């Protein structure tokens, strides 16, 4: 750059710096910090009775064990589960919402307590995660994975669970399309859904490939996305791959998948794109659409293909497909051996072990309050249920003996005892249902992990 230009630019900088000083002062004096305040969760749209109950409840427990808190639980529970279901679920919640009840709860506590609504009592949804014993040998269950992630409903929390794929190996980069040579795809290739622009202006993205990878590897993923989203690059397989890779690293799985799927078979990036897109599809809950592409594949990574096919079969619940795919397991490849063994273990655990029975839990709770919950592995909840139901029963019995059955002093604790006793049976039944559902979630999570993480080693 010539000296006059530099001088002019320097003057420009001077002006910018003096403007910036004013801006700094303004920022210092006007920045909004209200988000940093410690707030208490007291929704505006609650009734006066709920507000009073909440105010008293806080004096009894100090803080909320669950969110929504128990005093706000009855109304939505009745709405979602019906009158009887809502009442029983609320009584179960009352028994669980205590120090003893949450003592063995491994679910991380949010700022307003453990996130759990009445939907936790719906048999098809399990949101009381993290309750499994440590003996399963599975990775920890996390909310949003497994059954809650289904096609078309990508869950941000699921996206957050993905593991960074790590640093691409130079050997992978060696397979790159030479920036000087045209890419395998043509400019006329249609752009992906969601492609910002695919104008035919000429610069090949290969020139910036190393820079884009540098940005991703140095945790400057937003910069990488900004770079590859530009419209000035020529449409190519490298561009599709880089866009997919940038979105994948930002956990934007749906967009990543659309780009990775667009990488053509002739491309040097095809295999990496194929296997990563399969893992991404599975994370998004789509266990079927990758099948065709995987079955057609006949390249050097057939064992990896079999691992992914077996994993997808487990996720779909197809025993036969799993057996067929697992015949290709060699148990000798360093990168895949662990995944192969884990998938077989999950298969055995799922199909050859007997699941816990919710009816047995209900029966146990009917005999000894809380026993069903202990059977489900919830010892704290079981003890809490036993103490509360037992205490109410004992109070009722005392009044019955001293005041007679028809005295209001007997009727009131008697009614409470009945509600809590039935609630305890209901809670025991639900706890085992949820346990079984959580177990399946944990297994699905482990399958997703094992069809995804080996890719980091294979494509290193």
């Amino acid at each position, binding site marked *: 750059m010539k000296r006059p230009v530099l001088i002019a630019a320097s003057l*420009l*900088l001077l002006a910018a710096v003096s403007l910036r000083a004013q801006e700094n002062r303004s920022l210092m004096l006007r*920045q909004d*910090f209200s988000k940093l305040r*410690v707030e208490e969760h007291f929704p505006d749209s609650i009734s006066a009775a709920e507000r009073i109950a909440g105010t008293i409840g806080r004096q009894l427990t100090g803080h909320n064990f669950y969110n929504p808190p128990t005093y706000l639980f009855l109304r939505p529970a009745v709405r979602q589960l019906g009158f009887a279901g809502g009442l029983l679920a609320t009584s179960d919640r009352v028994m669980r919402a205590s120090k003893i009840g949450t003592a063995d709860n491994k679910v991380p506590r949010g700022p307003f307590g453990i996130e759990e609504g009445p939907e936790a009592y719906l048999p098809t949804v399990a949101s009381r995660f993290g309750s499994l014993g440590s003996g399963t040998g599975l990775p920890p269950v996390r909310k949003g994975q497994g059954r809650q992630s289904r096609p078309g409903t990508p869950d941000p929390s699921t996206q957050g669970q993905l593991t960074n794929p790590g640093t691409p190996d130079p050997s992978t980069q060696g397979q790159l399309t030479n920036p000087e040579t045209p890419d395998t795809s043509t400019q006329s290739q249609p752009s992906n859904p969601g492609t910002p622009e695919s104008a035919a202006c000429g610069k090949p993205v290969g020139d910036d490939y190393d820079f884009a990878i540098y940005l991703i590897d140095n945790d400057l993923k937003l910069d990488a996305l*900004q770079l590859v989203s530009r419209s000035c690059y020529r449409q190519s397989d490298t561009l599709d791959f880089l866009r997919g890779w940038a979105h994948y690293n930002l956990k934007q799985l749906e967009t990543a998948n659309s780009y990775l799927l667009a990488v053509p078979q002739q491309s040097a990036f095809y295999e990496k794109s194929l296997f990563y897109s399969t893992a991404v599809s599975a994370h998004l809950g789509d266990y079927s659409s990758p099948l065709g592409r995987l079955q057609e594949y006949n390249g050097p990574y057939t064992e990896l293909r079999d691992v992914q096919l077996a994993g997808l079969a487990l996720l779909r619940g197809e025993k036969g497909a799993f057996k067929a795919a697992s015949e290709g397991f060699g148990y000798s490849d360093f990168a895949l051996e662990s995944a192969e063994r884990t998938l077989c273990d999950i298969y055995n655990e799922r199909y050859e072990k007997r699941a816990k029975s919710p009816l047995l839990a209900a029966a146990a709770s009917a005999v000894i309050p809380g026993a069903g919950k202990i059977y489900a592995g919830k010892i704290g909840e079981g003890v809490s249920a036993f103490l509360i139901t037992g205490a109410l029963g004992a109070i009722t019995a005392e009044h019955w003996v001293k005041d007679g059955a028809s005295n209001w002093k007997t009727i009131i604790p008697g009614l409470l005892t009945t509600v809590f006793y039935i609630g305890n049976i209901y809670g025991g039944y639900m706890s085992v249902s949820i346990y079984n559902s959580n177990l399946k979630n944990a297994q699905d999570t482990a399958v997703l992990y094992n069809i995804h993480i080996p890719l980091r080693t294979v494509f290193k």
Partner: protein
Amino acid sequence: MLRIRLFCTISIFLSVLYSSRAQDWEGLAVEYERAVYSGASLEETNAALLGKAGCYKALGRYSEASSTLARVRMFALTAEERQNVLFEQELCWFLGGDFGQAASLVEEVDAISQDALLLHALVLAYAGRYDESEIYAARCISWDGTCGRLGELLKLYEGHPRVRKEGTALALSFVPPLGHFYNEAWGEGLLSMGLNGAAAGFLVANLLGGYWVTGLLGGAVALNYTFMGNQERNAFLVHKNNGNGPLEFGERLRALLADILSDEL
């Protein structure tokens, strides 16, 4: 000489901004990063990182701006340039709401300008270090030698929130309303006292009436809930007050300083 080179390099990058897509801060940040990646000289690398931090700052991504400034190779800067970078870093931590990190830089940034004094005063106030903040704030408003509203400022600092101790709150909460009163939760204190009294009354009345099971299982359990809940509540209130107190004081201080400084202008 170094400063001139740095100056010129920044100018080149700024010209990129004005000659290409104006206000495209994200795109410009990538270009700055490209300059770092392409193995530019130390001066150019530093200039690029400063430019990139500026882009993030313009975008309101203050923590990223701070992280970028942390990558600046300080040893290649003059003392004055280093001070400017540290000031920007402290400012970005502050704007990003990380007052602890910002306060850790107060000792390193020389208070040689009114802006630096203002920043230190605010950072330390939000970090709950009121005495140190007061000195910087007083120096800030007396920068041009006049200090007409110093009394107003000192009065504000006299009423700064006190840091409450959890241990004290828990000890006081053995007598139910006292812990709440320590936290200035007057209404809640009375409610807690009422609940504890009711539970204790239920316990005693039932025991005196011969209802031992009801008294012990009902009254004692209820008393346990009200008493332990009162302690838990006080621990939370301490946390809440200690978190919100500096924020509320900081807001008042900013309003006063903005008023005083605008008067000066």
